[in-house]
């Protein structure tokens, strides 16, 4: 009897803890399925792909503890050309459940690619604040895995609306950046109303 009671208590506690987890997703009433454009480091990114809302996934954590939106990666990719490529990538899935607790889907990523000088530094990245870049220079790449990897690439507009960093300790630690993006992949895939709000540890950057 005690064992059954113990199991019930553990299950109830687990359910309670998991129900407490809320992701940072604040829906835009004008654009169903998309988040508001924010600059609070919520690690949220949404966009319509052919009018279907997509979002970066949420990891509910263990027993509801440590849940978080999946983080992006921001890296400098060396090329053999005169320019390197700044690559901002994150995972994405269809936003068919806007509440919370979605498991990771099959692997899919979206990447925004920008040509930058080979001498590109963090200071150069901060200088992107408030700059809008047109699609004749930038690319968007969609990668998905359903039994095999599929990669599609096209052109993209990117606008870094806000770039902020924490410099209180004398060195740059948290870097938060938010903005807008859209893109075309051929005539078949149209990415619209894209917006992101990310925060990453500046120590993880390779530039």
């Amino acid at each position, binding site marked *: 009897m005690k064992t059954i009671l113990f199991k019930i208590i553990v299950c109830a506690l687990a359910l309670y803890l998991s129900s407490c987890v809320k992701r940072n997703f604040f829906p835009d009433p004008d654009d169903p399925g998309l988040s*508001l454009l924010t600059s609070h480091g919520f690690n949220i990114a949404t966009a319509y792909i052919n009018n279907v809302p997509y979002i970066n996934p949420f990891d509910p954590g263990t027993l509801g503890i440590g849940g978080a939106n999946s983080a992006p990666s921001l890296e400098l990719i060396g090329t053999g050309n005169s320019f390197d490529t700044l690559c901002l990538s994150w995972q994405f899935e269809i936003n068919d459940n806007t509440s919370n607790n979605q498991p990771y889907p099959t692997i899919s990523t979206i990447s925004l690619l920008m040509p930058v000088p080979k001498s590109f530094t963090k200071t150069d990245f901060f200088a992107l604040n408030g700059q809008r870049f047109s699609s004749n220079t930038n690319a968007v790449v969609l990668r998905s895995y359903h039994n095999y990897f599929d990669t599609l690439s096209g052109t993209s507009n990117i606008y870094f609306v806000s770039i902020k960093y924490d410099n209180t300790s004398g060195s740059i630690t948290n870097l938060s950046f938010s903005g*807008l993006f859209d893109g075309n992949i051929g005539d078949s895939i149209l990415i619209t109303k894209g917006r992101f709000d990310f925060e990453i540890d500046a120590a993880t950057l390779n530039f």
Partner: protein
Amino acid sequence: MKPFLLAFSIFILFSFATNAQSSLSLSTGISSDLNNAHHSFYHIPFSLQWKPSSRERSAFFVEFDYDFPFSTKSTGQSYTLNPSLPKEVTLQETIRPYIFSVSIGFRIHLYTNKRNNSFYLNLLPFGISTQNFKVNYKNFDKENYEILNPDINMNRGGIVTSIAAIYNFHKTKQDMKLMLHVQSPPLEGTGNYPLSFRFVAPLQLTFGYNFYYNKRK
């Protein structure tokens, strides 16, 4: 400190309303906000107090307050990817917080002068208040632009507490009143989304009329 608290407790215990009549009071005036530093919310308050009992020692009453808001102006920044449009546009934002409160409390008689005008202290330890914030961005082109960190509509409520100083006057009937009333913001949080405003804590200055009925002989 202890003698003061003891004296104050005795004062409250043995104080009572001197008007041995049931009453309805209506008042209106102007209200400002004590809880927002960045926005100044002003309202026209309408206050209805009902003292149901005509017993001399009963000071219990119910108060209904509705605060009709003036629009408060602010600004928001919007951005677009469309290269044929300005990349950043400043929008005018208006915020209108509608407030409704129901409170219960009791009144403490403080003083009556030679003209029979009287001062009361109303204590309302428990009330429920809803605050409905309506946010609008003027001329917002939602097809092409996105607002950064926009304020959004919010309708929430919670428990409040309030206190008021009352001055009843006008010849011997004391049928007019002047009231200074301050109410706490609701205990409920405004949610996880960061807004540019907080709950309103209204400070009301109102003038009104007391309707006495069911006079006890």
